[in-house]
């Protein structure tokens, strides 16, 4: 009896210990983000957590800083183009992927996710040389290509997963009722994969918005993306304006997470 009780209380101690560990690990994950958001609302002159008083002055300061705002605008622009292009190209690739079978299919999936698996540094260096050769180095166009490449796998993975949920018999049924390939795509496939397609676009946009290394090597003359501008700002000025800029970026990713949850559910997305 007493032995059973002690085994039971041992078990409880283990459970409590595990619970504490889990809480600490989640704190570890979330704390840096929380500190940035906290620091952005400070009324003081230093980036610090907990903040000194509360104010929105550093947000006002952010929008007065031409270099940071320009960076934000360039990032948004490149992100939007990246999302649209990767969604289109990934949708087409996913449809082709549907008809590839057997061993080849595995290689195709691997190829499509290559930019995600090879370190960004290598891709960036290779691309720098390549763009130099085709005279697109230091142009917005070249940077845009780099972002499309790096974000493509995110779009592809989401869209291909959505395509796999559509049984081939739906296409056949549609054809048997007289639909052309385009009609089947527009009336059957597209509505069914829409959430996955939108999710792919969101992932591609956010990934593009966050890219740093490739932007550093490919950045156009006189143009900075927000992460580049933020890095410079952190190196030379280190004022709470940076926390405000970073908070806007965090807000964007939380918005993205919420949208993905609404569209397809996070559990299926990851």
């Amino acid at each position, binding site marked *: 009896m007493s032995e059973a009780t002690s085994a039971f209380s041992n078990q409880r101690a283990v459970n409590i210990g595990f619970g504490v560990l889990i809480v600490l690990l989640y704190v570890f994950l979330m704390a840096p983000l929380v500190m940035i958001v906290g620091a952005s609302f400070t009324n003081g002159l230093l980036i610090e957590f907990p903040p000194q008083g509360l104010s929105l002055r550093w947000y006002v300061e952010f929008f007065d800083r031409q270099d940071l705002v320009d960076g934000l605008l360039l990032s948004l622009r490149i992100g939007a183009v990246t999302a649209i292009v990767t969604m289109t190209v990934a949708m087409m690739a996913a449809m082709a992927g549907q008809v590839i079978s*057997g061993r080849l299919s595995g290689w195709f999936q691997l190829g499509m996710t290559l930019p995600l698996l090879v370190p960004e540094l290598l891709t960036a260096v290779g691309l720098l040389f390549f763009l130099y050769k085709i005279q697109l180095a230091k142009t917005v166009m070249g940077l845009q290509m780099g972002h499309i490449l790096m974000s493509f796998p995110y779009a592809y993975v989401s869209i291909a997963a959505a395509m796999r949920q559509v049984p081939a018999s739906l296409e056949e049924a549609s054809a048997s009722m007289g639909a052309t390939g385009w009609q089947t795509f527009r009336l059957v496939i597209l509505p069914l994969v829409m959430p996955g397609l939108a999710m792919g676009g969101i992932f591609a946009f956010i990934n593009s918005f966050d890219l740093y290394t490739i932007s550093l090597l490919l950045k156009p003359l006189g143009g900075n993306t927000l992460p580049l501008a933020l890095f410079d700002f952190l190196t030379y000025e280190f004022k709470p304006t940076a926390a405000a800029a970073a908070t806007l970026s965090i807000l964007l990713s939380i918005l993205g997470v919420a949208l993905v949850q609404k569209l397809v559910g996070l559990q299926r997305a990851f």
Partner: protein
Amino acid sequence: MSLRNPKLFLAIPAIALIFVFMILPITNMVDMSFRTPGQSDPFGDDYTTMHYDRIVGDAYYWGVLLRSLLTAGAVTLLCLLVSYPIAWHMSKAKGMKAVFLYACIASPLMTGVLVRNFGWMIAAALNGPLNEFLLGLGIIQQPLRLLFTQGLVILALVHVFVPFMVLPINNALRNISPTLIEASTSMGATRRQVFRDIILPLSFPGIYPGMILVYVLAVAAYVTPALLGGQMVSYMPTLIIGELTGTFQWPFGSALAIVLSVSTILVVGLFTALTARLMERSKA
């Protein structure tokens, strides 16, 4: 599959994108690493092995390479230690709790590396939360200078890569049938034995890709050492980017990148060979 299926043509833009803008350029880097230094251009027209000779002959580069490989190794192991309990806890969750936990993993994943590293700059300040936490626990008596140390670089890299490790392990854990656990309990295994003999080996198909991905990405991570490592300590990625953007030594930078890639592939190959038996047994 019929090769005449017209749908296959839809893959052309994607294949072109990855082939032209990634595979070709990376292959081209090998060529670049054998070029002579340029005069007005970033590279010359002739071929030479001088860059490799220089790297092999200089203990400084050996040291930086070793530091990069070891740091990535430490990051990978710490990542595994942090990620496994989280993945375990996540794999048990259902409903809204699961959604919340996924959001906790996904939010950092979808926030940029730069922003997350910046968070550690705030945390690591001399009178910042991290020092207060350590003082409060009584581990240290005086505030430590944490910023621009290797320790902080490792900590921040672990933070960056935890989601990459949690997600595959979580998937592997979810794929383990609960009846296996019931079966082993019915044969007299304690909870610890169930974990060691059943759950840990069967989650290896998630651990393996997680570790490989984290290692490969950590070896080549640039932002974190550049922002949090300071000027005193060099890592391969900061060295490479320095050669490419600062001094415009493209051939030498390429040679460094190739050396780093080959070393990484060797480490990954060694790890794969050592764990081949475990992988063979545990895959579904």
